[in-house]
């Protein structure tokens, strides 16, 4: 199966993986700042296990409503929790950062869902969260909603390059 997936990106976009063992990111890999001692390490792109998979992102969208994320973050515009559709991140925009935000919670009122929700679903949620600011490929982001139109679809979300979280290339 892995071989097949690797064979074609389009296949990856369509695959529905019901049983797999997505793992939480390794603890040491979750980095919150671009600042580091000594020369900058080139950022190690950890591929999000589901970011190329349309089904996983749409599952993330469904879970986002079911786990009441929408009650606190609305459909990305924020409320009790901060907006998730913009370019500003308190705790990092990388897939492993978003995973950690959801799984471990954050001190100013983000509940730790990791005690109740499995790693697979959290990765799906993370992929959907990132789709709200255009950080996953357009062809996997959900295109429409079954409910009241409240914003442009995720597919149409302009890529909001994380402004305060991404490591910058070394200054000249």
């Amino acid at each position: 199966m892995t071989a097949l997936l690797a064979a074609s990106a389009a296949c990856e976009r369509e695959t529905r993986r019901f049983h797999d063992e997505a793992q939480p990111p390794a603890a040491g890999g979750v980095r919150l700042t671009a600042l580091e001692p000594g020369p900058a390490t080139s950022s190690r792109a950890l591929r999000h296990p589901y970011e190329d998979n349309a089904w996983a992102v749409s599952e993330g969208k469904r879970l986002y409503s079911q786990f009441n994320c929408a009650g606190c973050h609305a459909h990305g515009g924020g409320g009790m929790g901060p907006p998730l559709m913009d370019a500003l991140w308190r705790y990092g925009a990388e897939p492993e950062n978003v995973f950690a935000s959801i799984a471990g919670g954050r001190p100013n009122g983000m509940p730790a869902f990791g005690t109740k929700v499995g790693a697979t679903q959290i990765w799906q949620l993370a992929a959907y969260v990132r789709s709200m600011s255009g950080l996953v490929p357009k062809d996997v982001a959900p295109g429409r909603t079954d409910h009241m139109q409240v914003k442009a679809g995720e597919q149409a979300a302009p890529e909001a390059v994380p402004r305060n979280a991404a490591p910058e290339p070394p200054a000249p």
Partner: protein
Amino acid sequence: MRFRAFAGAGLITAVLGCTDGNGGDAAASAGAAANRTRVADTTAIASGSGAEWTQVAGDDANTRYSPLDEINTANAAQLTLAWSFSTGVNRGQEAAPLVIDGTMYVVTPYPNILYALDLTQPGAPTRWTYRPEPLAAAQGVACCDVVNRGPAYADGRIFYNTLDAHTVAVDAATGREIWRTRLGDINRGETMTMAPLVVKGKVLVGVSGGEFGVRGWLTALDAASGAIAWRAYHTGPDADVLIGDRFKPFYAMDQGTDLGVTSWPPDMWRTGGGGVWGFISYDPDLDLIYYGTANPGPWNPDLRPGDNKWTAGIFARDPDDGAAVWFYQTSPHDLYDHDGINESILVDLPWQGRDRKLLLHPGRNGYMYVIDRATGEVLAADAFGFVNSARGVDLRTGRLIPEPSKAPVTGRVVRMICPAAPGMKDWQPAAWSPRLRLLFVPHQNLCMDHEALEANYISGTPYLGADAKYYGGPGGWRGRFGAWDPVAREWAWTIEENFPVWSGALVTAGDVAFYGTMEGWFKAVDAASGRELWRFKTGSGIIGQPVTYRGPDGKQYVAILSGVGGWSGAIVSADLDPRDSTAGAGFASAMRDLPQHTTKGGTLYVFALP
């Protein structure tokens, strides 16, 4: 009048009020005031001498009326800034400062810092600061910004609630914590934002969290020890609601056994909402407290067939043991988050030829209720703005008559529901002038599109089941400040504002009414005519409660906290993104231009005549 919490105080203060009431006549002649007869101050049940401001609403009757008249319609234009104070917290400032014995007490939004400012010294330096250090996680379960509506005072102690659902008592002289009682659990979505009322040695406090499926309550704490004296739930069996022999609701719809269970689908009362986050009033003669209960949960009404007692209504209770005396449900089976928490202002007025003890309640559902506060009988319920979500209130049955075409249906988008979820008027408290017999009502004009959805109860997360987006109602203005004449049952005058008027009101014996706008203007208007007398641009939008007092130097001062936020201002205070029109539970889309008009802040401004 510092220790006002005993029966009889009302009588004494009313007499004081009379003498003060006659003093301001000369000055109040300006404007179109001629048609308003000034009457002696016999209508407020308690108003104090006005030198201090010992409770958020000014008095137990919740009038927010001051007998001070040094600042009046003739000289208000000369008001100038006396001093200011930064709270150091840039979130919505909804609190009223208190003034007791030469000290001003200011409580901030989360982290709920309490400052004591020395009014006897130039510039009012800090006497002491008390930091309760509430749990940071409480910020995530506070529905509508991390606000606090102010402290209470009695017998040398300041009492207030922290966002993480504790009540604290602090020594007013030293800032030392005397007791701290935990009342709720943020893991169930329980927070506390309301200002307590102290009555006969009991500190009355309520819980917020109607958006989290809390089981709402009002609790009385012993002011001396902080021990819980009684707790009345607003859902569940009669025993838990403190409904017993004395309970005599006026209307059949509120009568029956265990309605807090039977008016819900099985067990849903356990997560049914009905918190208390507005103001409490007290009538020492009838010895009854009055307060409103919040919306039922979840928002989607399809999921909770039944009247959903005892949410979205008004309770009268005995302060000693909490026993319910009457209840009136303003929104049975609430469809739109139209809480009953708005304040009840206690006034005595001749009503159709008979002197009556009344309660004025500008309802969130858009109706201005005039209620007999001894019995709970509704004498009038008139729309005070554009309402299309209901057809009126049936005065025979007491029941709100919903408009069927605007009723939410799961999965259907219902458009142009007016008023929107925040109602015609939200928390922002009105003021009553016993001289003019007018009620000064800050409020809003918003409608909404609404889709009811499935809801999952997961404790500590929102329990809503609805998507909504709000926008300005008919007329092109989103807020209004007006003077309602409860006898004529109409507006005496109104002032339209661009944004919702989310600040409280204040009115004085100088016939000056004060309020603030979300752009940051603090305004003084002629209370008789609505003519603007003065305005001052503060640093941030105003959503606080103006107060007035006589300083140690003998001068009259007016104070207001500036700092935008709250539900309406969260787009600025919490940086919401209005590209999603459901941001801030739908409010951000109605306020998308607010960030061009104001920025975050948290500053107290104090004004006086030169």
